[in-house]
């Protein structure tokens, strides 16, 4: 069993059905993720990067609206065929998610502490003092006065604080893999850096793996070990970050990196994607 990686995805495909119309939104997705590794998934809107991440734990509409193919093995256990009740333990347990908009991922009518406590009670029912665990979880993501914040409602926190609370909730159940779907896109650049520094520290301390979905190559370069580029539902390029940032094998990756404005290149005309590389828009 030692050869089995933490997560092994093979030929994963996602198809949406609407009446007679079928749309393949991801296909042929295969990769492995080792413990403690950070994988960045890059692509534009509509490239299938989020859907692929949600498919790992079947967080998608049930059949027949959505059909999954291929295989997702977490420590040797096939997730795609797992019964709902066992999969519910994996979601938020072994594989936890944080999303782009912390404001809309938190329930506005419950306190932060209640919501984190709910996750702890579900995934670690043996916990005696849930409240103490909640405060500890909030302190771990560097929230000042965690006991006070636990009693606050989401609207009382800033975007950065909400995202910290989301991370605290995701980590409260000690996941092996954290899927972070555009975790800093909605945040200011300085807060963005704080959140990424926080994720880097937690990964180091806990040996947790992270699947980081982003369109920001700067974050990829500074934070990830390996990267895969998705285009029209397929992985068109993958490899160690240093290699992919230096030389790209697929024309799409090359073009996408060229589009990004860089400091110190004022008023140069920005490169754009050629027609055949555009994600149908």
């Amino acid at each position, binding site marked *: 069993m030692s050869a089995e990686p933490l997560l092994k995805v093979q030929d994963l495909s996602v198809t949406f059905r609407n009446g007679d119309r079928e749309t393949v939104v991801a296909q042929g997705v295969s990769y492995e993720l080792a413990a403690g590794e950070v994988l960045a998934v890059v692509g*534009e*809107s509509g490239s299938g990067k989020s859907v692929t991440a949600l498919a790992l734990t079947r967080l998608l509409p049930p059949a027949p609206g959505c059909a999954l193919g291929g295989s997702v093995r977490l420590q040797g256990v096939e997730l795609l065929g797992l019964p709902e009740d066992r999969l519910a333990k994996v979601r938020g347990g072994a594989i936890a998610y944080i999303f782009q908009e912390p404001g809309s991922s938190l329930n506005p009518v419950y306190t932060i502490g209640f919501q984190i406590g709910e996750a702890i009670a579900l995934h670690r029912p043996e916990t005696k003092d849930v409240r103490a665990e909640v405060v500890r979880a909030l302190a771990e993501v560097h929230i000042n006065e965690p006991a006070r914040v636990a009693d606050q409602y989401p609207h009382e926190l800033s*975007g950065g604080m909400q995202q910290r609370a989301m991370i605290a909730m995701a980590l409260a159940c000690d996941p092996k893999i954290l899927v972070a779907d555009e975790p800093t896109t909605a945040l*200011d*650049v*300085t*807060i*963005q*850096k704080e959140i990424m520094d926080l994720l880097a520290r937690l990964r180091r301390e806990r040996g947790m793996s992270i699947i980081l979905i982003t*369109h*920001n*190559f*700067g*974050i*990829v*370069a*500074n934070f990830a070990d390996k990267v895969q580029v998705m285009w029209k539902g397929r992985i068109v390029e993958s490899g160690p970050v240093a290699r992919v*940032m230096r030389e790209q094998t697929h024309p799409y990756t090359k*073009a*996408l990196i060229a*589009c*990004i*404005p*860089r*400091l*110190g*290149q*004022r*008023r*140069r*005309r*920005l*490169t*754009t*994607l050629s027609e055949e590389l*555009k994600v149908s*828009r």
Partner: protein
Amino acid sequence: MSDPLLEIKGLSVHYPGRAAWFFQKAAPKKAVDDISFVVPKGKTVGLVGESGSGKTTTGRAIVKLAPLTAGSIRYQGQDIGALSNAAFLPWRKKIQMIFQDPYNSLNPRADILSILSEPLEIHFPAMSRADREARCAELLRSVQLPAEHLRRHPHEFSGGQRQRIGIARALAVQPELIICDEPVSALDVSVQAEVVNLLQDLQEQFGLTYLFIAHDLAVVEHVSDHILVMSRGRIVEQGTPAQILGDPQEAYTKTLLAAVPRF
């Protein structure tokens, strides 16, 4: 700097604050606090800052979408800050705005023709229906969209296309100054590059002046001739892109710069 189109002096926008107790006097919330700057004709002035820094409020105050507490706004020498809404109408033709969210800034029930026609009906009431339609088609072409799209509705377009329509709507009345409020923040990098290029082409073609509001320093540096850095309602630093990037003076500017990812 030569030939200022827009001159802002001591601009403040304060909102009533909330008192902790009813007998306390509430301190006003100073969204914009005594700022002054100049936008030269035909140039792009970039305005950077984080959310809550007052950069959007500054842009909105210029077109009377936010109330002025103090200060003056001069457009080609004329004070437009104190004008009533009715008296301001001729300036609405000269100063247009492009918004951040291409999803919420277009009426979902109107087709593109009526979205683009509306400013024409207001500012060019004498224009015939046929002329208006021809002008709308021309506008779409100038933002590189096919004229056949006039009969479509906003939901049929992608984010980048909607932003182009927003730009076409701003261009409809042949403005001189466009306030671009985070025009590319919501777009993918490839689409962002297209829209930035388009804005620069249009500037050249029509001699436009831009006040370009954004939080991404790399984009602002790319388009601007002069950069203003805002924090907590004040301009903390300003200068040419070379000055701001090469030799930032303020700690806040350094923080912003350090946060720009490099690779």
